[in-house]
């Protein structure tokens, strides 16, 4: 048993945190909220140079081929920002799923482009009026002059505006998707519309007979491969959420020690302390469920596939719940200043809500956990 980071892992963590502190300041992140794409394009090259964008891309394709622990360290540190945008969606969610497709030149070059930051691929997995069920729904393709054409709507596509491509599951009727379509966002027949409000950058994307050649269809591997890729995505999303929880704790402790009311720091008041204790407990719950899942992923063997699946769903369920708890408690500590968008606390609040349902809400993940543990058999 060893629950510490290795020296290498600690160095990686420090380097990502240094980036977050230097570049992703609260002011910078608040400004980004008003930008066209919601993320800072110039960060792409530094994140590519550092190897983070290619964390999940195999080394032979120009990536780093990181294990889950290394990828999680990057995610947790970026979650502290919280650094929005392409890293989580393109380099984690999309890259993990593309990795789970059969090798073709188009697939390999797309993964290389993700690691270089020249491609940003938004996962477009959400089909209107369909519940998330672990990638079991897709858009139905049609054929036009030998090309594949896609028509339909994809709801809640994160960061579509700044993306170069969309990753769209395709399926016949109600069948489970057997392929992803890689759709260039600048091609004819692709339109996106920003969903306004509290939600983080999400778009409705409409495909109006968007035509693709055959190489843009990536065949999804076996069910085991897909389940494994999804488990990694759930775990890394959880790590990103843990980073947000940790930042909320630090900010709340710091604020409670500096904000003076009734002639003393508000942290002297036990009711304020109560909020911080609840925040701490939620953070540690998410953190340690996630860390164990990371370890299971990296140490997995064929016998404990079910244990890994259960652990990944547990981590995602607990982290989604915890992120909201941490944000709520932080607001209780901060009072009025916390709801000033310039102050930056709401960046986390927004993420905590926006990620709650993304690729499955906690109840769904717990049900999948129950299925993996085979309680009813």
């Amino acid at each position: 048993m060893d629950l510490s980071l290795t020296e290498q892992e600690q160095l990686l963590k420090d380097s990502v945190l240094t980036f977050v502190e230097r570049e992703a300041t609260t002011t910078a992140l608040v400004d980004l909220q008003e930008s066209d794409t919601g993320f800072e394009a110039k960060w792409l090259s530094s994140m590519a140079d550092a190897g983070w964008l290619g964390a999940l891309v195999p080394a032979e394709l120009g990536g780093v081929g990181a294990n889950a622990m290394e990828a999680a360290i990057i995610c947790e540190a970026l979650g502290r920002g919280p650094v929005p945008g392409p890293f989580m969606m393109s380099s984690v969610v999309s890259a993990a799923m593309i990795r789970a497709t059969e090798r073709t030149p188009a697939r390999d070059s797309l993964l290389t482009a993700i690691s270089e930051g020249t491609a940003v691929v938004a996962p477009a997995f959400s089909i209107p009026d369909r519940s998330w069920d672990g990638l079991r729904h897709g858009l139905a393709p049609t054929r036009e002059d030998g090309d594949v054409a896609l028509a339909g709507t994809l709801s809640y596509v994160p960061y579509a505006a700044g993306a170069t491509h969309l990753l769209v599951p395709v399926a016949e009727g109600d069948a489970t998707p057997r392929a992803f379509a890689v759709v260039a966002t600048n091609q004819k027949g692709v339109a996106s519309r920003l969903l306004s409000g509290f939600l983080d950058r999400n778009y409705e994307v409409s495909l109006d007979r968007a035509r693709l050649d055959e190489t843009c269809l990536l065949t999804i591997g076996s069910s085991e491969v897909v389940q494994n890729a999804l488990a990694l995505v759930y775990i890394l999303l959880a790590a990103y959420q843990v980073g947000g929880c940790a930042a909320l704790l630090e900010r709340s402790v710091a604020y409670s020690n500096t904000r003076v009311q009734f002639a003393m720091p508000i942290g002297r008041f036990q009711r304020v302390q109560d909020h911080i204790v609840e925040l701490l407990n939620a953070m540690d719950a998410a953190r340690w469920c996630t860390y164990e899942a990371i370890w299971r992923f990296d140490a997995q063997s064929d016998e404990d596939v079910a244990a890994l699946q259960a652990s990944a769903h547990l981590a995602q369920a607990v982290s989604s719940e915890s992120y909201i708890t941490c944000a709520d408690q932080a607001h209780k500590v901060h009072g009025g200043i916390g709801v000033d968008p310039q102050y930056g606390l709401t960046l986390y609040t927004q993420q905590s809500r926006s990620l709650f349902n993304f690729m499955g809400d906690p109840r769904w993940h717990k049900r999948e956990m129950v299925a993996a543990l085979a309680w009813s058999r």
Partner: protein
Amino acid sequence: MDFEMTYTPEQEAFREEVRAWLADNVPSDLGAETTTDAEAHEQYLRRRELGRRLGERGWLYPSAPTEYGGGGMEIGAVLVLEEEMRRLSLGLPPYYDSGGMLGGATVLVWGSDEQKQRFLPPIYKGEVRTWQLLTEPEAGSDLASAKLAARRDGDEFVLNGQKIFVGSAHGADRFWMITCTDPKAPRHENLSWFMVDAHLAGITIQPLPVLADVAEGHKNTVFFDDVRVPADCLVGGENNGWTVANTHLEMEHGAIGSIRRDSIFDKLLDYCRTHLLDGIPMIRHPDVQDRLADIYTRLEIMRLLTTRNFWRSYTKNKEGYNGPQVTYLRKVTGLWLTQAVLELIGPAALTSDSEYGALAGAAERQQRSGIVDLMPGSTIDVQRVVISRALGVGKRPRPEER
């Protein structure tokens, strides 16, 4: 990271040695539940006997220093011993010995050399059973307001007063206790600790039943009526008791951690698999699965944080808030579990009836212990304060801010 506990060949060899010794020395029914008071008392005496035999080998208090009768063993070997005892449904020590555990460790820090030689070997060798006596009717969470009087009279102190929620069934040999040695002195400068012979004249022990069968059956009220205690039983300096208390309380508030799972979940799952509801096994009902999933989730969080604490103890890398956090969460999770189990299996969780009672009585016991366990070792409100301090929340304001 690696969450799997692995043992060295030396530790595995030690496990074989322990297992063989326990097989020879522990009667198979020693970990069993008892039904009558007479049975319980007889079992207690047999557990004390086992304690003495473990003590001879340094296995009763395996991590305590050998010079005082402990085992001087590293934490991995201690874990092996605890695991092997648990296989037989026994703890280490195999009887309630709160004053031995916390008092012994505090004497190690605060006792004089002579006191360590006098007090510690009997504890670590299992010759005495020691209770801790802290709470009084008017001193609960506010331990510093303890009033049990210890008045100096020559070479002795004369003790008068009352302690409550003390000990267990079957009596004790020693009391590790906090007293007020100067009622006129300022708060925090008036307390002293004693290791007291529990058989001295003037001591009366009165059973104090509580809702759950804690500590071998019940707690006690202990009355002190002109009890004369030799002055050399005062540990840590006269009126220095609050400082000494911090050593004691830090251990009591903390949770050293373990890598155990709470066995109640497997029992609940088994119950839901083997009992029918509306004609089908309970486990087939989606709402039953949801409720079980919520319980599993809370218990997994507890397991993981307890594992974290174990590892921090194991590597001597403690982080201030970890101990009280786990103690706090164990309490609130236990209380939460009472309602969650009630929702899951209904009134069968509330009865110990041999036909209706769920989990062979374990569910009904949890309904009571989940409430009672909120209190020992300090309330959840005190735990929150301890956690906050450890986090550095609520620092005293700097002078210019006052």
